[in-house]
């Protein structure tokens, strides 16, 4: 609390106006209402499950935040029990690589035999019963969904989703297929509530990112791998009598020369500055991009049977002096140059502002108020980039609680499906069908091909076609026949039969007794002439999940 007041004072001194929160005392959570709790759970969780509102009301904001910001202290048996059935989580990257390569070999064989196929990289709705690598990918998507629905560590799962998109990699880009699980498990999940600097460095050294944005292909001009040099020396030592051997060696050398990367690839360097750290208006130039790329030459991936890991290839590293954002990187310090660069970027004011803006967009509004961003930046400065502290500052800021920003975020397909499952008390079944539902709604998980990740603004998710799909899902869930969801053991509306009983149930279960007046009136009008109580309950619930209120959070 004290930190918060300090930040407010600083802001006032700096001339910033905390306009959004006027009339909202910073200690608002001392007196809090059901509506506050619903707001909090809509933003820091994938919506409430039955009983959550009452539980958090008693816990209080500080109690809730302390628990959610220390997810390891929260037992998570429901999610863990479910995840045990997903084989992909037990497999090492090396094992997944074997599966991937077996699939590639099989496809090449098919192509060789003339069954031509032109694999497109466009994300598609996954198959019903995938096998091999596709099965593992679907399982991995299912893991993300199951965690969103079942985990007690909801704020953590929300942040995992946030960072997954901030540091997006596209799972369908070749080897990323087998690199993705360890990327999410060991990089994103490990650091989602840790320090931004550690997270940034971990992504930069992750095989998935190095492959996705081609840094593994980026080498200093004229650099040659040591194998080639060794081959050349062997060729020189060979006596003329060994002509056949010499020819074999020459052809191997030619093959290696054709395959080996040459020259700088700027892809990762550019996205590192534009999307991961400074932001596109963060004050860097094309020269900075080039020098960042040169610093990161040699950052690559070692792949051999049994091992897939980050490696620094000294032979590929550019040994010249570099200059980034006015900072001189003296020549010849190898991997340390990159680490120094990443630390500099992680602490750069543009980075703090850019990433804080995105966090405020996730938690407060599509166009977040300046006061929220300032608060987040202050917490970033004060904590040295501790993600948990930045989140706490945002969630206790007046902006977060201001009435004008409540229910103004439109749910992404993932948020819509997860919140609908949670509010009805449904759980994922043993199939992978729910993955397909979220994909059809427009968000096949881990399959956004652009490094921007999935967008976090309503225009991207609201259009007539997408809404029609949501209505389908809403009615399917209401009827207890949504693909991939097990109907709840206790039906949300119980055995409510009369319109009044059903209305009271819908008001409580779906609107938590704090919202939905207009929708409830429509539901009453629509169900009153239906003779069958079951049909009434289904239509009422379908309308509730398909309602304008439920599309927002």
């Amino acid at each position: 609390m004290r930190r918060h007041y300090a930040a407010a004072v600083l802001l006032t001194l700096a001339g910033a106006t905390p306009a959004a929160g006027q009339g909202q005392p910073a200690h608002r959570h001392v007196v809090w209402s059901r509506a506050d709790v619903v707001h909090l759970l809509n933003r820091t969780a994938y919506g409430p499950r039955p009983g959550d509102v009452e539980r958090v009301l008693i816990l209080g904001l500080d109690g809730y935040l302390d628990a959610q910001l220390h997810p390891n202290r929260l037992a998570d048996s429901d999610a863990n029990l479910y995840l045990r059935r997903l084989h992909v989580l037990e497999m090492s990257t090396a094992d997944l690589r074997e599966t991937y390569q077996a699939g590639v070999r099989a496809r090449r064989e098919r192509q060789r035999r003339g069954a031509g196929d032109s694999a497109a990289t466009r994300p598609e709705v996954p198959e019903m019963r995938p096998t091999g690598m596709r099965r593992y990918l679907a399982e991995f998507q299912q893991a993300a969904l199951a965690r969103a629905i079942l985990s007690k560590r909801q704020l953590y799962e929300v942040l995992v989703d946030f960072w997954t998109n901030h540091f997006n990699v596209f799972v369908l880009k070749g080897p990323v297929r087998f690199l993705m699980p360890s990327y999410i498990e060991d990089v994103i999940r490990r650091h989602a509530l840790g320090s931004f600097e550690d997270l940034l460095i971990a992504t930069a050294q992750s095989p998935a990112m190095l492959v996705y944005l081609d840094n593994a292909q980026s080498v200093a001009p004229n650099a040659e791998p040591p194998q080639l040099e060794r081959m050349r020396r062997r060729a020189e030592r060979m006596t003329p009598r060994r002509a056949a051997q010499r020819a074999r060696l020459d052809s191997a050398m030619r093959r290696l020369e054709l395959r080996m990367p040459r020259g700088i690839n700027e892809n990762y360097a550019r996205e590192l500055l534009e999307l991961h750290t400074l932001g596109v208006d963060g004050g860097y130039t094309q020269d900075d991009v080039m020098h960042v790329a040169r610093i990161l030459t040699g950052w690559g991936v070692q792949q051999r049977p049994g091992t897939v890991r980050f490696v620094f290839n000294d032979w590929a590293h550019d040994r010249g002096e570099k200059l980034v954002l006015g900072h001189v990187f003296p020549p010849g310090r190898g991997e340390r140059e990159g680490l120094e660069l990443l630390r500099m970027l992680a602490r750069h004011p543009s980075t703090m502002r850019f990433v804080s803006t995105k966090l405020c967009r996730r938690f407060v509004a599509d166009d977040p108020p300046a006061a929220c961003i300032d608060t987040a930046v202050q917490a970033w400065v004060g904590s040295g980039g501790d993600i948990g502290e930045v989140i706490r500052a945002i969630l206790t800021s007046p902006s977060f609680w201001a009435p004008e920003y409540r229910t103004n975020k439109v749910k992404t397909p993932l948020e819509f499906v997860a919140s609908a499952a949670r509010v009805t008390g449904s759980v994922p079944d043993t199939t992978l069908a729910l993955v397909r539902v979220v994909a059809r709604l427009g968000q096949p998980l881990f399959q956004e091909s652009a490094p921007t990740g999935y967008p976090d603004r309503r225009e991207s998710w609201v259009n007539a076609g997408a809404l029609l799909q949501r209505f389908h899902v809403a009615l399917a869930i209401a009827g207890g026949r949504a693909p991939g969801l097990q109907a709840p053991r206790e039906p949300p509306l119980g055995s409510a039969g009369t319109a009044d009983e059903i209305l009271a149930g819908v008001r409580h279960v779906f609107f938590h007794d704090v919202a939905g007046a207009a929708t409830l009136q429509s539901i009453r009008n629509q169900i009153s002439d239906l003779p069958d109580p079951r049909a009434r309950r289904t239509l009422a619930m379908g309308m509730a999940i398909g309602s304008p209120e439920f599309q927002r959070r």
Partner: protein
Amino acid sequence: MTTEKLRRRVFVKTGGLALLSLGLDPIFLTRAAYAVRRSGATGTRTKTLVCVFQRGAVDGLNMIVPHGERRYYDERPRIAVPPPGHAGGALDLDGMFGLHPALAPLLPLYHAGTLALVHAVGSPDATRSHFDAQDYMESGTPGRKTTQDGWLNRQLAHAADHGTTPFRGVAIGPHLPRALRGAAPALAIDNLQNFGMPGRGALRERITSAFEEMYGGTSSGLVASSAGEAFDAARRLEAAHPERVRPANGAAYPSSPFGRAMRQIAQLIRSDLGLEIAFTDVGGWDTHVNQGAGEGQLAGRLADFGRALAAFATDLGERLADVTILTMSEFGRTVAENGASGTDHGHATAMMVMGGSTRGGRVYGRWPTLDPARRFKGRDLAVTTDFRDLFAEVLVRHLGSTDLGAVFPGYQTNAARWLDLMPA
């Protein structure tokens, strides 16, 4: 509907600003205004523009090959498409340029004068970021990030007096692309077969009216106005059944996502739903590694691309006279191949214009040559045609657009710079 009338009256009386303070957003207001103007089904033939976005920056130099220029072969020892007459060689067009051999299905369209090619076209903005460049090409305002809507949506908005159906602007795909976002209603349809309200027959009617009442109530904003468009579209589609239209004239679409998208656009056109602007995209062009020459990765993508476009032209038959297809990509790729037998982000690329009244059978655009002194920053193919000049000509001469200032704000297009690939 009374609420609609009320909203309009408030809108007219007080203007957008007053309503903003009540929490109604401007996009919603404009959409409400459209809803009022909306008339019945068109049932008549409309002029249609089909935009195809090759996302990932297609290598224009291997798509439309400058085989007549020696430097092309010097710069691309491993990935150049061989000259015409060689194995895997380019399909000669005019002695200077050739089509990539995988685009063979498009060659008859070129010779028939239906397909025009444009080389060295692109954005004046120097960015080499896919995302920025796509954004600029879709917003139609290169260098300006603050533009909220897309150029195709502004075209729809400015040509709204053509009579409105919910199918004036349709994107085939799960999301509405940036180019179609904005004040005028537009639909994203992933699959015509599944588009519509749940249920069948009487049940579907019942569900539709229930949801319509719920969304027609006091709720407002983007979600509500989108829902209104959804109900309207669903009813019309149910009456027209475009998904039952079968490919005509023996057209054979590839079974790829792009093939399916082009097939569905043809179905919408042939169902006379009033489609004015269709948009779809096709990926896989970001060929940094092992892009291949006459065969290989890029060839595979181009084969799919060419087959789908050719099938579309065949399917539409004489109807193609009402339809112009315009392909685009955010930028081109480096003239020189990189160390991984691929190409990196460059500047100008090549685009295609097909159908309508296109004067095809020619490669348009001033060729800047591959001379390093004439390249952009000494590295990439220079842009000699601003993409907005190409788009503007197509809008004016195909769709009869009259207010280019609204579609490309801040840009003075000039018919003198146009390529004249369509009759005035």
